[in-house]
């Protein structure tokens, strides 16, 4: 059995100074793992921030440089897209909340560092979804072709419209009305998110979530997601958000209180523990300790820890062990289980499996 290589990406994200000790073979492995995890540009940005890029050997430096150039172009594109969305929805006077990467970028947060983008995610009130969809279509966005089943799945059971694609720019926009689907067992209230949302200076009608909400959304998104190819990247976002907000007085207490309000204590537990374990996020010991009360009961908790330890590695052959496929599948099923009542889940998985053949 081939030995599994260490997760170098997590090691250097947790302790960037280690990058200076790497030999060329380790750089070779790190670049490959980071590329597979979509974290190459982030590593480049972290080094750039510390003015250390010049000390990277020429080979890996070229790869880091190329990744930064691409990420920078994608970030420019996101800025343009957000401006287009703002223009398209301005006349509706509807609150639009940016989510995830686009939010980090427009709010100038450290979690935008070296981030890559495939689409823009926004949250709008459920009651105004139809108007928003119409206004977007008027401005050139079209529904991406999906089977009728997928359309109904997205609209009814998920918390978003099917992805929209702009006909000329080819960019993708995901419009959500809640941060978790209505069928999910956890029920965070969207109206609370809207009332706490923060405007973005200079951009009419566009907001980002309040700090605690942003962190909780990122955690609930990761720990409910069925596609974990970006698991480590999402965890890195969480780590950077926690490091940034964590220095604000009272943040950790507010975070726990808010998680109670929004029914997101379980994802908070996973988020804090995995970030601390994998990326050495400085979570206060007292917060970690008390969070065990909202963890799963013991046997399930250790099974989940095991599953997550497999899933939160870079999706690269070097870090895969023989049980990775099992853990990925188990988490896929779990993610759907959290979203859909069991009978529906079985039906959904069957239909998706049939569609693949």
């Amino acid at each position, binding site marked *: 059995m081939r030995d599994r290589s260490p997760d170098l990406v997590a090691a250097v994200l947790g302790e960037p100074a280690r990058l200076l000790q790497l030999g060329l073979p380790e750089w070779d492995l790190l670049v490959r793992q980071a590329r597979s995890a979509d974290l190459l540009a982030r590593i480049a940005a972290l080094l750039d921030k510390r003015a250390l890029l010049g000390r990277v050997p020429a080979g890996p430096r070229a790869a880091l440089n190329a990744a930064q150039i691409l990420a920078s172009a994608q970030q*420019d*594109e996101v800025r*343009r897209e957000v*401006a287009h969305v703002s223009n398209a929805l301005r006349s509706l006077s509807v609150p639009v909340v940016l989510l995830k990467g686009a939010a980090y970028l427009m709010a100038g947060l450290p979690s935008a560092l070296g981030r890559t983008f495939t689409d823009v995610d926004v949250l709008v009130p459920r009651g105004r979804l139809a108007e928003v969809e119409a206004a977007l279509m008027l401005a050139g966005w079209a529904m991406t072709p999906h089977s009728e089943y997928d359309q109904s799945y997205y609209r009814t059971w998920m918390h978003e419209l099917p992805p929209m694609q702009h006909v000329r*720019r080819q960019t993708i926009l995901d419009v959500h009305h809640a941060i978790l689907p209505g069928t999910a067992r956890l029920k965070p209230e969207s109206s609370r998110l809207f009332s706490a949302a923060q405007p973005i200076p200079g951009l009419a009608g566009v907001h980002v979530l309040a700090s605690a909400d942003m962190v909780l959304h990122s955690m609930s998104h990761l720990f409910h997601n069925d596609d974990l190819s970006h698991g480590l990247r999402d965890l890195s976002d969480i780590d950077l958000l926690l490091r940034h907000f964590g220095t604000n007085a009272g943040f950790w207490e507010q975070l726990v209180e808010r998680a109670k309000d929004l029914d997101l204590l379980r994802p908070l537990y996973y988020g804090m523990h995995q970030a601390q374990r994998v990326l050495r996020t400085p979570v206060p010991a007292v917060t970690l300790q008390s969070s065990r009360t909202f963890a799963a009961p013991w046997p399930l908790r250790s099974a989940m820890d095991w599953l997550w330890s497999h899933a939160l590695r870079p999706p690269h052959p070097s870090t895969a062990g023989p049980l990775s496929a099992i853990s990925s599948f188990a988490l896929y099923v779990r993610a759907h289980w959290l979203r859909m009542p069991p009978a529906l889940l079985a039906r959904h998985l069957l239909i998706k499996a049939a569609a693949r053949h």
Partner: protein
Amino acid sequence: MEDVLSREHWRISEPEVIDWREWSDEFVVHVTSRSETHLLGAAAGSILLVLLDSREMLTLDDIYAIAVGNPEMTGAAQRSRIPAADRERLQAILTDFERLGIVTRIAA
């Protein structure tokens, strides 16, 4: 109809992010806000330069006057002196620029 059109004003949308180069009366224009690059002929290129050089909003008539090098032309007398074909062509160029995100049209 003509009155309404002639009261419209035009200006460059975002002057700081339009890059252009000219070779032998043909222009290549890069519109950063759209990440698009276009080839313009001599006529369209010269209209672009008029708009880039100006700090104010301009009507179609103003643009024409500057483009033909006679900024003294003003008012109704001027409008009657712009050949219909030229007027149409200029309108078409400005409409194209609007579609490409190069200019913004401001209604009267």
